[in-house]
């Protein structure tokens, strides 16, 4: 038992958890904004993939990582706008549109990547983000190196959590988002434009999903591969449920998932007997399904989730 504790409190392990949690935190917050406004975005998996691709490409061609991040965010917003056009403006099925956006974005990511980089035996890579130690704070024992000696994008994710909570609970726009997600009819009567608010929330969500993709291809892997996202988008959707559509809880859910993921990575590395490493890769997904089963009974989704709004229909 003590060996386990030793591993958990290793600085490297804590730092790994934070790193794994970062793209999930961005993605989960993005999905949360969308769902709080009443729009399920199953396009998240494809949006993250396409953003990872455009971010990597922009960074690789321009030599500027931050230009890459900008490209990824703009891609996320654009694809968010596409999903919003179909589900919010046209009021089409959120389930099927989301799958459509994912299929379309993934296909486009593969197609453009192959077009730009061709088929190379060694996939091209970039020099990704380097850690940016924060003076003084990074000197704190254990916590310092784990939390305050990270990539700039990690700090952005940490700051994004209170910011998301502030925007959602303390600003007029956040109130509008919650209203159109809970009771669009009432919001409409109160003079809130349901369509505009939902559109904005889905686009903001897309921007955050873009940051998640940017982190994967420019800080975590420093390359674009077809498996760069590999289910993280779907996990984020589950984490929103697990986090009961709240920014703090959702971020906590991302941290918990990252803990399980870091643990299975450690188990892989320890090479337990002859067990193939794929066995451990299943664990975070099984954990997520079980966690959803435990949480879903009491989870209360935004009332108007999945329901399109048309003013003239009663």
């Amino acid at each position: 038992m003590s060996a386990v504790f030793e591993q958990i409190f290793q600085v490297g392990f804590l730092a790994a958890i934070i790193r794994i949690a970062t793209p999930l935190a961005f993605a989960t917050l993005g999905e949360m904004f969308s769902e709080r406004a009443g729009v399920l975005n199953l396009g998240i998996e494809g949006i993250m993939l396409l953003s990872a691709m455009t971010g990597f490409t922009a960074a690789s061609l321009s030599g500027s990582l931050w230009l890459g991040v900008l490209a990824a965010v703009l891609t996320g917003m654009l694809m968010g706008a596409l999903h919003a056009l179909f589900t919010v403006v046209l009021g089409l099925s959120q389930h099927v549109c989301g799958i459509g956006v994912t299929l379309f974005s993934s296909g486009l990511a593969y197609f453009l990547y192959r077009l730009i980089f061709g088929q190379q035996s060694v996939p091209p890579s970039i020099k990704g983000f380097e850690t940016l130690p924060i003076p003084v704070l990074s000197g704190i024992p254990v916590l310092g190196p784990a939390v305050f000696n990270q990539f700039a994008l990690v700090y952005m994710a940490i700051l994004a959590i209170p910011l998301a909570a502030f925007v959602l609970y303390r600003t007029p726009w956040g109130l509008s988002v919650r209203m159109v997600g809970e009771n669009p009819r009432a919001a409409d009567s109160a003079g809130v434009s349901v369509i505009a608010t939902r559109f904005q929330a889905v686009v903001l969500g897309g921007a955050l999903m873009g940051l998640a993709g940017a982190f994967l291809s420019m800080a975590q892997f420093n390359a674009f591969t077809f498996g760069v996202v590999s289910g993280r988008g779907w996990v984020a959707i589950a984490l929103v449920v697990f986090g009961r559509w709240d920014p703090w809880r959702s971020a906590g859910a991302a941290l918990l998932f990252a803990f399980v993921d870091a643990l299975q990575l450690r188990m892989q590395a320890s090479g337990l007997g002859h067990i193939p490493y794929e066995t451990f890769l299943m664990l975070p997904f099984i954990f997520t399904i079980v966690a959803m089963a435990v949480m879903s009974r009491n989870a209360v989704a935004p009332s108007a989730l999945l329901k399109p709004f048309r003013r003239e229909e009663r």
Partner: protein
Amino acid sequence: MFRLEVRASTPAWFNLALPLLAIGATLVLCSGLIALAGAGVLESYGVMFTASLGDSYAITETMVRAAPMIFTGLAVAVAFRAKFWNIGAEGQLLAGAVASCFVGAIPMPGPLAMFLMAVAGAAAGAAVALVPATLRVKFKVDDVVSSLLLNSVIYYALMALIEGPWKDTFSGYPISPPIEDSANFPVLLEGTRLHLGVVVALITAPLIWFLIVRTTLGFRIRVTGENQEAARYGGIHVERVLISTALLSGALAGLAGVGEVGGVHFQVMSDISPGYGYSGIVVAMLARLNPLGVVPAAIFLAAVMTGAEAMSRATGVPAFLSDVIQGTALLAMLVALLFTAYRIRRVGAAR
């Protein structure tokens, strides 16, 4: 000014016109990508068509590809009819492939082996689909998310199997041992890969149509999908219907995997399905969830996939164009479906 007006009923020719409209729009939109790749649009689509439907051999190749998508398309169509959002056809297909590979490797008379492979594959697919259905009925877990996450679980389980116990100790390749020769599905046309499973897929579609349209279970599935509350009020045990739907849907997706093992690959490898489970969603939507429409829709997507590879070799346009076409076709079809619910009316200035 134009406005949308709710349509009371849709004419029958819409069932044909809407998918064709969506496919036409898709091909026009995707021609931009062909031009971006620096190839001739008409030439590229021409190569795609010739390579997939141009001669009898090409047609058999396209049909071999269509078979798994007929099964996954039916799986999705049945599930979506009941509004059971089974996005897990991919995992159910893989489970069916693994189970049938286990059975096919046991020495026994050929016909018996093929029958048992089908039974095992269908059962495995159904068992996987039972998980999201049970989670939804008992724990109110969203079926979309659980079935999606389950795809990853099944995929890694398959990988663990072929990297572990099944690994080819001689070559070191991550592939399963082959099934018995006697269990290979018979080829129907000499010199082609057209196997028995393709015919089974073509026969299954009208059977599922009959089940949905003419049987009590089909009626319950449709009513549950259209209005769950009304179904409950009408004495239908909605939970039981959802479970039955999941079993049927999963079994169909599992059969897709059986066909790939018995008729095409004769073993299991990591890329046994290039996303046939997800393509099933596109197929089902193009077919407007009609089991009979699943057949032409699957053949269309199969032709795109087969043709895209030839087009890539001939013109250098990345074969991933077929993935973009699938996604675009799904979105275009959804937009086209607006015409079933609404009509566009010109509204005078007086209003």
